[in-house]
């Protein structure tokens, strides 16, 4: 029965040897394979002399072939030490900087590929014009409900204003948006902002394809598409500007595409229909106003109370909220969390660099400059790492300007800054002042119970033979902080192997 499988088993054994041979360095592979195949031939002759296969014999042959892998790895290891980085480079300053740079690159790359983060970063360059406020009824605590009637907007716009020199109005309602040729009502409902024509000019927000708009002066209102709508309904067509579409019952011409996350004002909007004047019978909406220098001078805080007089001398008590900081800016959040982390840092680690015991004779000013430059480089790399990593975490699964994203960014920035700076300080304290290499081989010296009779703590050594670091187990009045001991030439014999390797 087994004899029928003999060619198959032989092929299997040959396959094992061939697979193992790929582990062997190329220049030794052919000879290695020849030796093992020769040995296999003899093994098979010995274990199954009459070519009549039996299971125990095949097990022996297979066990022999599996040993080829260990042999192959052994040969590979014999060649590896030449390729491995030299031990002298391990724990070096260059290695640390390279590792941090790699992390920074990875975080930045992740930020480029995560759609949420990309949208967020694109907004950093698309800030609204300064001096803009959103006006709403002071009686409403939040902005989820629109409170300004179109006739109020028209009144403010037509009257001469001392504190405002520009107004824009919008209100959001569900509507269908599709190509003009498509039958009405055939598409899904989108959030459409019916806005005054100057909305985007007043906000100063950049639009895509706006320069391609070839309006033939046919009197059609303009429509701005959100990137989401543009992708879904228009297949991300880059020549979309100028296309005639139907928005609800209105015919309009596409004037541009608003990038994702550009809109940070109240209301979930997928398209903006820009009309010369809002319909008088339309519902309440939102008003954006631009402050004159006199109006800006009145803005002591982010909010200002406004009293508006109606046609019959009625008074409306309104609230103007600055749009500039209407939603927390990721950069402001980052700076705030960084400040908090700096304040909290002394609570979790010593801010000393442990250099009080460094003798000026042994550390020349170029060495000290190098040491400080290394510290500054680490901090300079950590800060963007924290920024990009916190953005990655906050906006990977959240929409821009959502509260959840802001909280995640705040907490992650604080945590990463705090523990990152702690690591930087601890790392700096454990680097040889001469070569900036990490001290190694910690050895516990003394007993904790003898702290007040003798010294106890940890000793670590620079592997280049420059210094010995003593770190007390318990800080005492006579040994409160770590101390460096500079090793003179009498210690060289200890490091001869390392240095010459």
């Amino acid at each position: 029965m087994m004899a029928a499988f003999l060619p198959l088993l032989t092929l299997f054994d040959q396959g094992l040897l061939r697979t193992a041979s790929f582990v062997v360095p190329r220049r030794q592979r052919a000879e290695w394979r020849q030796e093992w195949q020769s040995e296999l031939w003899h093994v098979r002759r010995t274990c199954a002399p009459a070519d009549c296969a039996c299971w125990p014999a095949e097990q022996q042959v297979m066990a022999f072939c599996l040993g080829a892998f260990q042999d192959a790895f052994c040969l590979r290891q014999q060649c590896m030490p030449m390729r491995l980085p030299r031990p002298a480079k391990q724990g070096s300053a260059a290695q640390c900087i390279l590792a941090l740079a790699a992390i920074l690159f990875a975080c930045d790359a992740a930020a480029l590929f995560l759609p949420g983060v990309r949208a967020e970063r694109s907004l950093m360059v698309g800030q609204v014009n300064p001096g803009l406020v959103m006006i709403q009824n002071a009686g409403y605590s939040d902005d989820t409900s629109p409170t300004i009637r179109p006739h109020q907007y028209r009144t403010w716009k037509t009257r001469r204003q001392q504190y405002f020199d520009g107004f824009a109005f919008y209100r959001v309602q569900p509507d269908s948006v599709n190509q003009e040729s498509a039958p009405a009502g055939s598409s899904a409902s989108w959030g459409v902002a019916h806005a005054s024509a100057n909305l985007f000019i007043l906000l100063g927000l950049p639009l895509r394809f706006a320069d391609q708009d070839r309006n033939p002066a046919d009197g059609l209102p303009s429509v701005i598409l959100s990137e989401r709508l543009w992708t879904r309904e228009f297949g991300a067509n880059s020549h979309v500007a100028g296309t005639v579409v139907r928005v609800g019952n209105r015919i309009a011409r596409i004037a541009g595409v608003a990038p994702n996350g550009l809109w940070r004002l109240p209301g979930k909007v997928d398209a903006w229909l820009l009309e010369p004047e809002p319909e008088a019978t339309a519902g309440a909406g939102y008003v954006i106003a631009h402050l004159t220098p006199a109006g800006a001078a009145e803005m002591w805080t982010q909010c200002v109370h406004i009293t508006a007089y109606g046609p019959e001398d009625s008074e409306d008590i309104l609230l103007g909220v600055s749009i500039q900081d209407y939603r927390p800016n990721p950069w402001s959040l980052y700076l705030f969390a960084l400040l908090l982390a700096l304040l909290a840092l002394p609570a979790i680690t010593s801010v000393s660099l442990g250099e009080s015991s460094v003798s000026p004779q042994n550390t020349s000013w170029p060495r000290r400059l190098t040491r400080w430059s290394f510290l500054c480089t680490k901090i300079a790399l950590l800060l963007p790492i924290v920024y990009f990593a916190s953005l990655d975490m906050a906006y990977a699964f959240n929409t821009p300007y959502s509260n959840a994203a802001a909280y995640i960014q705040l907490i992650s920035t604080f945590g990463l800054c705090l523990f990152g700076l702690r690591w930087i300080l601890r790392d700096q304290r454990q680097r040889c002042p001469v070569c900036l290499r990490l001290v190694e081989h910690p050895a516990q010296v003394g007993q904790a119970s003898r702290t007040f009779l003798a010294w106890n703590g940890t000793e670590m050594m620079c592997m280049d033979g420059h210094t010995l670091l003593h770190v007390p187990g318990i800080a005492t009045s006579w040994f409160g902080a770590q101390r460096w001991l500079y090793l003179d030439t009498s210690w060289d014999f200890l490091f001869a192997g390392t240095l010459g390797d």
Partner: protein
Amino acid sequence: MARESKPADAKLSHTAALILHAVDAGFIYGFSIMEMTGLPSGTVYPAMRRLERDELIRSHWERQSIADAEQRPPRKYYKLTPAGKITLEASRKRYPLLERLIPSEEAKSV
């Protein structure tokens, strides 16, 4: 630097010493050493690589004509170097019982 030590001073593991003894006793290819020592292939061959790297043994291929005459593939044979012999003498002092494990007379009669 460590490899520049004198061969006689080299400290062999018990397995390496056993294999060195086997080669000296006339078990001059991998499978015969496996059979004699009872060690698996995954131990014997890597150990022989290390012994060869440390220049305690040397390998050579059997002549093709001999293998053809016996209708089998040529084998790779191993032989002790002078440094290997010195190390072997040192290891005999270190592992005196090894002599009893490897019957050299039997090997010579094969």
